[in-house]
């Protein structure tokens, strides 16, 4: 079985390598320092460095029930998406992890450059930091 196992392993590894190349190629479609904005089926790009950001301090609750404060320059989603019609916003990270924020929550949901110099989503009062999407690459308006 050891030889057969090795053959299975090599075959799976080859398939994974192909898919990895395909997936990385797909991710390169978004220009550096930008977030893709998908609205009504069309895609535009928001250059993060061009967005006007202000000092923000967002309070979250971690898994242990302790308060965590995310501070940094950021912008509220409602401000970033001004002029668009939507009922909810899906913020997606490069690893496809995502969080959904309703239109009502967008006033206190921020995209913040955190202390690690990474962009992240922070929704005020969120419990267990579940929607703290780090390094978002795509915003889908629904």
């Amino acid at each position, binding site marked *: 079985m050891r030889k057969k*196992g090795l053959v299975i392993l090599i075959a799976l590894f080859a398939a994974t390598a192909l898919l990895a190349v395909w997936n990385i190629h797909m991710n390169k479609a978004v220009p550096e320092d930008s977030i893709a904005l998908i609205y009504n089926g069309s895609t535009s790009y928001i250059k993060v460095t061009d967005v006007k950001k202000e000092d923000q301090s967002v309070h979250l609750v971690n898994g242990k029930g302790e308060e965590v404060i995310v501070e940094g320059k950021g912008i509220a989603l409602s401000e970033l998406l001004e002029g668009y019609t939507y009922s909810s916003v899906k913020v997606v990270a490069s690893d496809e992890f995502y969080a959904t924020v309703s239109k009502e929550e967008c006033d206190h949901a921020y995209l913040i450059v955190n202390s690690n110099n990474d962009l992240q989503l922070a929704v005020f009062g969120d419990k267990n930091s579940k929607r703290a999407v780090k390094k978002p690459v795509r915003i889908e308006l629904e």
Partner: protein
Amino acid sequence: MKKRFSLRVLLFLTLSADFGVLLKKVISPVANLITDSLHIPGGIGTPFSISVVAAASVIAGIFGSAMFMSLIQAVTAFFIGSVGAVGALAVISYMVPGLLIDIIILLSGKIGLSDSVKIYLSSILGSVAAALTANILVFGLRGVPLLLYISVSATTGALCAFLMELVYGKIKKAVKL
């Protein structure tokens, strides 16, 4: 004679289950580096703990061993704060592969497959089941990222089964269940 859950078997399964969780915890930092670069949310750490469940269940040879170990792993992971993105739903994400592993071992035993094949099948399919469960519960991946996530899980499951096969015979001899 039909095997049953003696204290010796339960101790072996519990220790193996916790070893699996520990293995996952140890491998996590390296696994995260790889999965981050592949732009997927996971798929490498979990197969390590699942392959231990698969191998120990084959050694025990009792239906329900994998589910018992999965429950132990879920409880241990919960208490050491190693539940990852699934949070309190970890019980489901551990139990689904456990149930599948039990069924695979039962069915493959009925058609006379060798222990090595049982370990490979249950480790690969258990890892894929864990990935799919996490995807349904949390990640919601679609398309190529989902295929890659499943493929990475299956490959790691196969790699772990390969490693387990190297030590399986020695462990089986040593524990004499």
